[in-house]
């Protein structure tokens, strides 16, 4: 039997939480850490209870592609490379073999292509086709050390980064995309290379990639550090 006193205390908390609704308020500094603590719990549930590496996102016929797919970046102007030929993807951190890969190197590796639905945290969705190399193929090449549990993806778009858990990164539909809708990845969608996966919300899909670093500690991220859910798995 649940203690009546505990129940009433819970009621008080719930009541206070909801009364602030009438104020157009964010909850204030006192509530924020508590909300973030619950968000961490939700991350844990998403990662360890709900996520399955074997559950694939639905794929569509290319004829179902949306007429438009919005694109966001952080920099004031659209990020672009001065010398695209000099671009390399750096793979480092807790790995046996650091890598330094050109676009040609990546294109010579296993190629995956799929037409999937993109889901933005804002609530919109759009269907597009993506071509690229599975992250699992990179992992096979660099051979992470036993302590590697996360990957930090970094970009040349301001200081935009994302942290990923290893299981999500190894999902068969998680790729490094260099093509979109049968064309090279356009600049506004993260050229020359972006992270893509229909298993995560759009803000986890790092564009304008420069490096992926294997870590033992959970890396933060641009939006994640500002309060957006870290796991963001669909």
């Amino acid at each position, binding site marked *: 039997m649940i203690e009546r006193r505990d129940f009433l205390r819970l009621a008080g908390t719930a009541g206070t*939480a909801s009364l*602030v609704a009438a104020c157009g308020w964010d909850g204030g500094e006192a509530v924020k850490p508590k909300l973030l603590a619950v968000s961490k719990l939700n991350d844990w549930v998403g990662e360890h209870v709900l996520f399955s590496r074997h559950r694939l996102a639905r794929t569509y016929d290319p004829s179902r592609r949306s007429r438009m797919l919005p694109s966001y970046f952080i920099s004031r102007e659209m990020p672009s490379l001065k010398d695209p030929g000099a671009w390399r993807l750096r793979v480092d951190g807790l790995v046996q073999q650091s890598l330094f890969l050109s676009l040609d190197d990546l294109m010579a590796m296993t190629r995956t292509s799929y037409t999937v639905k993109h889901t933005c945290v804002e609530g919109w969705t759009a269907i597009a086709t993506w071509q690229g190399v599975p992250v699992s193929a990179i992992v096979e090449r660099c051979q992470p050390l036993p302590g590697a549990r996360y990957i930090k993806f970094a970009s040349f778009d301001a200081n935009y980064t994302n942290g990923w858990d290893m299981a999500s990164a190894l999902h068969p539909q998680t790729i490094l995309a260099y093509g979109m809708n049968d064309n090279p990845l356009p600049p506004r969608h993260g050229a020359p290379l972006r992270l893509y996966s229909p298993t995560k919300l759009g803000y986890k899909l790092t564009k304008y990639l420069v490096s992926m670093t294997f870590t033992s500690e959970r890396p933060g991220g641009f939006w994640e550090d500002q309060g957006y859910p870290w796991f963001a798995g669909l």
Partner: protein
Amino acid sequence: MPAAPGAISPPRPYVHRHHWIVRFTHWAAALLLLGMIASGLQIYAAYARFGDRGGALLPNPFQDSSFPKWSRLGGWLAGGLNWHFALMWPLVLVGLVYTLYLLVSGEWRALLFRLRDVRGAIAMTRYYLRLSREHPPQGKHNPLQKLAYSSIVLLGVIAVLTGVAIYKPLQFAWLTTLFGGFQATRYWHFWTVWIFVAFTLAHVTLVFVVDPPSFRAMITGRYRGRFPSHD
């Protein structure tokens, strides 16, 4: 002629009408639902339409409009999401405790609308429309109340299921498909809000117009109104 419940009679003694679990879950659900709606309206502001980008949109009187600041909780999208995903746990818990209590105590019998209540519901409707003058005899709740209270529990279940289906549309793809896809599921989830709001307005109005002592009963548990407290 049987004594109509509305007839003038000597003051009645107080009777115990609502168990404390019912009273607690009732008010907790009301407050949590308020928080869920307010944070939901904040989330809605980020994309105030229903349909794939570049595709057909579902009809929505609130399309591209944002709700007033006082009605929103969270301050910005991340805040709204964090409130929504925090309050969802106690709300589901409260719903489960309430349902479990009804099942264990047997009180569901006084609340669940069943086929045999149809005739009584018609009689109540006739009474409310003033087509018949006498208030039909009833137990703890009249058949229309049973219909309303059963529907609102069902609506709660739909709100939770549509919510789960847009929270994890890949892990619960079967559920998202059942509701017609991601955007359609968002749409139904949004509409549950307005049904909850309409229900609450009607519920509160009827409490004070038809049976004011029932308000006190939902706080203290004790009731001295004109309706029976048992079937």
